[in-house]
């Protein structure tokens, strides 16, 4: 019974990844742009030694970490309010309100921000009376929009974890004399930690490979995804070698959070 799905995932997916990895060991003729099928490790050497790629990798990592932190900070109070303060119909309504944007479409949301962040957009119009201007298109805009895009992925698991948290744990903590902060630190946070990690799998890895948001609101910002996308047609072996970078980072991250039990809460 396992054969068809495994064949599918094995052949279509892992097979493709293997083909990609193999082609990373080839080179491209710089005159004709033809792929030369001679085994070598030049591409990986370029990526490891060229400071341009190191800077871009670090910048991309920074963006992914920043987006994950922002989403965790935003998701915690929202999920807590939904799961523990609101009740009954309110809770359902809030859940729908948070979930709906998840379905509204990636491109639609990125586009919405492009319009808002434009020179005559809403952000500048709102900030103008305060004597401020918005971030415009660039790296801050990329972090902002990515955090916006992936927020529901963080709210959902955290909400589910908080909702499952037994009320008597909180009551026992209060009975034993713990204040709200202490209960939060000693009872609530440990209970939602796997959920935070589960959410971070999405926020982190989706940010790490994104290139469309960068193209839409990033101005001239270069992240790993863009560099890969721009090399695909020019130099496929280099693009293949470059795409090993986010894959390695994500697999390490997955292995790390798996120990925290995050994959069970996905």
């Amino acid at each position: 019974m396992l054969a068809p799905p495994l064949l599918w995932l094995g052949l279509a997916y892992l097979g493709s990844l293997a083909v990609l990895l193999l082609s990373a060991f080839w080179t491209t003729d710089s005159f004709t742009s033809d792929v030369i099928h001679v085994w070598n490790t030049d591409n990986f050497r370029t990526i490891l030694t060229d400071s341009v790629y190191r800077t871009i990798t670090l910048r991309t990592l920074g963006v992914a970490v920043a987006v994950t932190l922002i989403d965790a900070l935003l998701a915690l109070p929202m999920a807590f309010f939904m799961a523990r303060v609101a009740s009954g119909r309110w809770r359902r309504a809030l859940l729908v309100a948070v979930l709906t944007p998840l379905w509204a479409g990636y491109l639609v949301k990125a586009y919405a921000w492009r319009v808002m962040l434009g020179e005559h957009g809403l952000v500048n119009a709102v900030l103008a009376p305060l004597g401020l201007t918005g971030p415009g298109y660039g790296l801050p805009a990329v972090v902002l929009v990515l955090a916006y895009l992936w927020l529901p992925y963080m709210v959902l698991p955290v909400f589910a974890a908080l909702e499952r948290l037994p009320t008597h744990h909180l009551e026992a903590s209060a009975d034993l004399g713990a204040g709200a902060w202490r209960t939060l630190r000693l009872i609530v946070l440990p209970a939602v930690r796997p959920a935070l990690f589960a959410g971070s799998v999405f926020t982190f890895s989706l940010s790490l490979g994104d290139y469309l948001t960068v193209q839409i609101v990033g101005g001239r910002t270069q992240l790993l995804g863009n560099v890969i996308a721009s090399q695909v047609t020019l130099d496929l072996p280099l693009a293949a070698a470059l795409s090993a970078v986010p894959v390695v980072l994500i697999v390490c991250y997955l292995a790390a959070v798996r120990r925290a039990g995050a994959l069970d809460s996905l």
Partner: protein
Amino acid sequence: MHLTRTARAVLGVLMTMGLAIVHVPLLLVVLNSFNADRSFAWPPSGLTGEWWVRAVRSQGVRDALWTSLQAGLAATAIALVLGVLAAFAVHRHRFFGRQTVSFLVVLPIALPGIVTGIALNAAFRTVLDPLGIGFGLFTVIVGHTTFCVVIVFNNVAARLRRIAPSLAEASADLGARPAQTFRHVTLPALRSALFAGALLAFALSFDEIVVTTFTAGPGTKTLPIWIYENLARPNQAPVINVVAALLIALSVIPVYVAQRLSSDSAGGRL
């Protein structure tokens, strides 16, 4: 935990602010689809319904919508079959590499779309091209299925873990054959998980752009591809706004249906 009045108020304010941040951009798109000014500067100078008329008449939008529907339905159908089989296998049997399977199925959604995209692109070129199968709707469907399988698998596997084994045992004790037990006991218990999984898978496929970019041929345009191609054309901006507004309005339906059907208050798993 007893929350003070201040704590509740602070949480309420944060919740309201969060919701505002989430919804203002979307509301703005809907408003802009009626904006008479083509540059969409804030505030709008006047309102018009012209863009909606133009969008409905646009052949490009209609063709793209049809392509997206075909790709989404086909990918969801294949994913349902494969995802359910995998979920049953992992649930029923203890076998070597069982942990690996549950790790493996997370990969297609955890790895960046661009990596999946160019990997599939390279593989299709080496495998399908010699067979005479070019890039087109078929390759898009194969690409979408890889991540749709995961969604179905996650939903069904989670539900299987929660169905009490005693139900199937009771059915067997009462003399039902395995096929009867499946039809009358297991399937009804799974139904809403299947539906939620299919719905999520379809929505993901409908929205997907990165994998699609690298697996679609030049003539195959799904709706997101159409939107993306037209982002760079200023004179198409009003029509894009209408399509975007329409997609936002439609997004209420799956959330509503998932809420009604799923016992999971979060309405399905990703």
